[in-house]
C-alpha cells in the first residue's frame, strides 16, 4: 500500500522570506517551515507520493531521487501529523 500527500486546504498561510507560516484549522499550533518545507507545500498543491516528490526535487538539489525521497519522508509525515498535509492511502 502506498500513500500520496496533498495540502490540507483548511490551513491559513503566510509566506516569509525563509519559508511559510501555517495554521491548520481547527486552530491548535502555528507551524513554520523553512527551506525544502516550503517547496513541498508548493509541490503538494496536487497529490503526490514521496517518490514523485523525490523525482521533482532531484534537479533542484542535484541529488538522486531515492536519496531525496528518503530525506523528505519524515518531513512529509511530520507535516501530515500536524494536519498541514493530508495523507491519502492508495489501495
Amino acid at each position, binding site marked *: 500500500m502506498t500513500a500520496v500527500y496533498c495540502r490540507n*486546504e483548511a490551513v491559513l498561510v*503566510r*509566506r*516569509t*522570506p525563509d519559508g511559510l*507560516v501555517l*495554521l491548520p*484549522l481547527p486552530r491548535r499550533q*502555528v507551524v*513554520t517551515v523553512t527551506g525544502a518545507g516550503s517547496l513541498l507545500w508548493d509541490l503538494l498543491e496536487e497529490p503526490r507520493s514521496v517518490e514523485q516528490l523525490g523525482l521533482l526535487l532531484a534537479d533542484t538539489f542535484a541529488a538522486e531521487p531515492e536519496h531525496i525521497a528518503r530525506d523528505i519522508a519524515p518531513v512529509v509525515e511530520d507535516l501530515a501529523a500536524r494536519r498541514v498535509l493530508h495523507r491519502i492511502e492508495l489501495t
Partner: protein
Amino acid sequence: VTTADVTATEIAALVRAVAAYGLPGSLLERPQQPLGTEDWSALLGEVRRQRLSGLLVQAVVDGALPAHDLQVAEAVDLHTRAMASTVLLESTLLDALDAMSAAGVEARVLKGSAVAHLDYPDPALRSFGDVDLLVRSDDVDTAVTALTEAGCRRRYPQPRPGFDAHFGKGASFWTPTGEEIDLHRTFAMGPWGLKIQLEDLWSGEPSTFRLAGRAVRALGAEERFMHACYHTVLGDSPPRLVPQRDVAQMILNGRINTDRVHDLVAAWNGEAVVAEAVRTTWQTLGIADVVELSAWAAGYVPSPRERHDLEVYVEGKASYAAKSAAAVRAIPGVRRKLSFLMALTFPKRSYLADRHSGLARRLGQGMAQVFSRGEAQ
C-alpha cells in the same frame, strides 16, 4: 564595519520610507549603508509598533535597505512573529464569521485581513492587530449576543439599550484567547460616522477572498477605500502609517473606480475626510505622482464647519464630549437627537462602572458644549 549614523528624526523619516516601500512615485530616501546597532534597534521597534514588518523585510530582501546579516535575521524573525499573529487572528475571524452565520447575521470583513488579501500583491505585506467586522445596524444586538455566547467578553457595555444600533460605531470584544474583535455598524463615531449612508455599504457588490479554503466577503473596492480614508483621518491622532499606506496602495494599484468614489463621497458629505486622507497620505509617504484623486484632494477647501468637525478627532482637541457634541448636529430629527443625548446623559450604571471615572464629568461638559452651541445658533 561601515554604518550610517542617523538621528531620531531621521528614524521617523526612515519608518515612513519603509511604509512607502514599493509605491510608485514615492521620493522618500533610504540610507545607502546599513544602520548602526542602536539606530537599527530604534527602526525595528518603530516598525513593530507601526506593524510594518512585511514592507521592511521586502525592502531588505530587495537590497533597497542595506542591512547586515544579523539585521536581516532580526527583521525576518520580527516578520515571522507578525505573520504568526495574523494567521491566529484570521482563525479568530473565521470563528467570528461562523458565530455570525449561525445567528443569521450577514457580515463583511473590514480592514486588516480583507485589505491584505484584496489590495496588496502579497498578504504578508500587510500586518494587522485585530479582527474587524461590519454588520447592519438592525443586526448589531444579535451580533453582540452571538459573540458573547461564543465566549467573547465585551469591553464596554452600551450606554443605554438601542445605542449601539442607532448611534454607536459598534462594539469591541476580547476573545477567550485575548484577541480583539471590533464589531462595526459604521466607520467612525461622531459626526462623520453618522453621516455615512450605511445602505451604501451593503448595496454594492462585495469583494470576496479565500481563507483556508473558505470564501469570505469584504466591502467592495471603493467602500474599502472610503474606510481606509476614514480610518486615516478619524482613527488615531496622529494618523498611523498602515492606513495611509492602504490609501496609497488602493489609489495606485488602479483597482478603484474614481467615479464611484466621488459618488460615495458626495452621498456621505465626506469630501473633507477623503481629501484630508489623500493629502496627508501623499505628504507622509512622499508621493510625487499626481493622479485624479490626489489632484482633487489638493484642490479641496473644507468649510469652517468641516474643519471644526475634523478637529474634534485631532489629538489634544479630541474628546468623547467634543465628538458627541459634534455628532448631535449630524443626527437627523429632534426625537433622535434627544434620544442620543439621553443615552449619554443618563447612561446605565454598568456603562459608567466600566468607563473611567471622569466620564460623567466629561459628559456634562459635552452637554454644556451642545447647549452653548445651540444657544449661539
